[in-house]
């Protein structure tokens, strides 16, 4: 199984610049690992204003239980939302915030 190398902040930077791809083969591996997460607690978005605004949310992993909305984390651009969640996941996998590490 592929493991994310905390030193490869260049891959995080690639994603930040171009969240919707096409991505390099190496970044694709990172994304496969990140996206293959259990459904409970998984980060998702909720479209609060059509085509204009999304808020961060987490899935409960159980049918009928409301999705947890983080209404204080709002995006007006889907690329920004992708980057925000990418950072959270990178940190979870490597212990490092890629935004800080690359500066």
């Amino acid at each position, binding site marked *: 199984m592929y493991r994310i190398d905390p030193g490869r902040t260049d891959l995080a930077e690639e994603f930040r610049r171009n969240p*919707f*791809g*096409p*991505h390099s083969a190496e970044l*694709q591996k990172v*994304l*496969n690992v990140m*996206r*293959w*997460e*259990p*459904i409970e607690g*998984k*980060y*998702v*978005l*909720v*479209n*609060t204003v*059509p*085509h204009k605004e*999304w*808020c961060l*949310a987490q*899935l409960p992993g159980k*049918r*009928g*239980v*409301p*999705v947890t*909305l983080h*209404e204080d984390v709002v995006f007006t651009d*889907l690329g920004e*939302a*992708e980057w925000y*969640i990418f950072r959270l996941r990178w940190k979870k996998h490597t212990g490092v915030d890629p935004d800080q590490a690359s500066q």
Partner: protein
Amino acid sequence: MTFDYRRRILGYADRVRARPGETIDFKISLEDHESFEFRTVRMVCGVETPEGAPYREVAVETPANGLHEGSSQRIDAGSYAVIPAAPVLDRLSSFTFQAFIMPTLPGDGRQVIISRGSGPGRPGFAVILDAAGALALMIGGGQDLITVSTGRPLQPWKWVFVAASYDAANGSVTLSQEPLIHTGESSSPMCIAGHAPSGVVFAADHDLHMAAWQTGWHEDGKPRMVGHFNGRIDSPRLASRVLEGHEMAALARSGPTSADWVVGAWDFAANISGDTFPDRSGNTLHGHLVNLPSRGVTGRQWDGSCHDWRECPDHYAAIHFHDDDLFDAGWRTTVSMTVPGSLASGIYAAHCRAGDDTCHIPFLVVPGRGAPRERVAFLASTATWLAYANNHWQLDEEKAEVKRGRIIAYSPDELFLHERRDLGLSTYDTHRDGSGVFYSSRLRPLVNNYSPQSAIWSFNADTHVTDWLEASGIGFDIVSDEDIHEDGVAALADYRVIITGTHPEYWSTDMLDALAAYFDRGGRLMYLGGNGFYWRIACHPVRGGEAIEVRRPESGARFWASRPGEYHLSFNGERGGLWKHIGRPPQSLVGVGTFATGFDRSGWFVKKPGIDDNPRASWIFEGVEGDIIGDFGVLGSGAAGIELDGADEALGTPPDTIVLASSDGHSAYYMQSPDEIVFNHAAVTADANPRVRADMVYFALPSGAGVFSTGSISWAASLGWNGYDNNVARITGNVLRRFAADAALP
């Protein structure tokens, strides 16, 4: 401020389409409101997109318009069986109940196998799985309700013989559970004895139920059912005394029996396509089913030697009940509307509003019998809309993001559906016990994919075609899948051209035969979608298109897989699955068939070299400059996307078919469809595999018929780009004008 996604107005209609003069009954439920405004609207474009055609509905006059009163209406989800009250049941004192069962969620709350109502002052009994999943008998009523349990939980998805008896003379209770396969201590057979009061007198005049328990009545007169069972029941039997082991064994084996102590011997292997089941005891305690539990499923006798329930019904003597099954919500009518003669054939909706809450209930007006027809008809994919309606897969499917290649962004409707599980499921979902959903009914509120203002999919996406027709000044009628299913080729025959929506995926045999007959008569088809003519469906044998059924055999782009032995549809016995595997690949009908899928962003088409010099094809590209087509649009930003169909002579593409253009520009999240792959390999993605593409094709047949196929779901979402002035709209218009004319096709 909390984001409010809850819907306080919901509804559905009793029919999806009507002719002028026919009546549609709308059934509306309100929460926190007492009245609502009913407006009839013609749906022009069902979805708002920043760069595409604007959302548009146009108010029309009907006698139903205006303010109406309403109230909350309940949905009673969960399937069960009813055996109506009978004197022979009233005489029951001592008894034995036995059955083979396969529980699928043992330990998930108390679940009832068989019951005869109980409540304060109305003693009854129920054979149940208790909260721990162990077999138990409840007997008595109110304060005196006694429960005796084996205390050993049953295993999920394993067949077990269960029996429970009560001796009224001395109050003794016997429970036995015998798994059909013993694999260790937890599955060894066991029999326990217990005690209840002697001489319990059961309340008379009460229905017998399987898979649920009636605790009383709702105010609207419907039974209040609880304790829904999840799993299968096979060969249930009821006797009027305590049976010995050998008597139970004999009763389990033989269906019909004449012993006078047999009260009921129910045969689930009979009438599998219907909603009833007979009693073979001679007491005529025939039963019926509520909320479409799954039939045509393997029973405890299935041994792999037979796969068609019509040939070996005994192998299929099981019914699979789910607590999230739903057929007909049974709401009372709030607004009745007779379709005025002034309404032209088209796509309409009841737009209902109460305060800030709104809902749309779509309906189609089709031309009256014998009324003049347009030359062009739009085929509304009502079967596909229904297959996708109330879809939860992005919510319940763990790998949704991996499959999409993007963070999942939920609509408010999806959040609402996630909570309101009683609204029922789509054929893309699994039941709570993990089994696939066979049936979808339109007699319930359909919150997504069957109404405007949700994602660009199904109903909404299809309005991009009719919106463009209207903007182009082209008159058209509406024909729906249900019309074709019911009237066959007669529903199509009067039209020169039939235009499909973006995703005509689900076809019954009758529908496909009708389309083939239409071609034989020289009819012309514009297939403006992808993943079409893909799955076989069946309609309910009695209630027609109100409910459809689909099975998901060995392969295909699917979100659950049929279990072995369950490839045949219960509604009509036909083998379900991909039309390709049944022997009628889409390529043999429309030149192209499913090659690939992808959901992140769309590609575009590239003209085939030399196509402009081909006199049979150049007219299609008249006025189109350059070789790139559709590198724009509101669904993934391109006209070649989502689900892609290709041409393949080996799969039946007619030899004289012209491939006009093929798609390019797909991401690595575009992959071959599973039914295209015989053995695993890594090169299934668009960057490595030439079969991950759509082909735009054209062919003419000696009958005068012609077919133009785009093989792409996102094609229609590009029609409205730049005020309808673009090469996708140009090509579509070129083909339509030529197809609609009387002249022979090149």
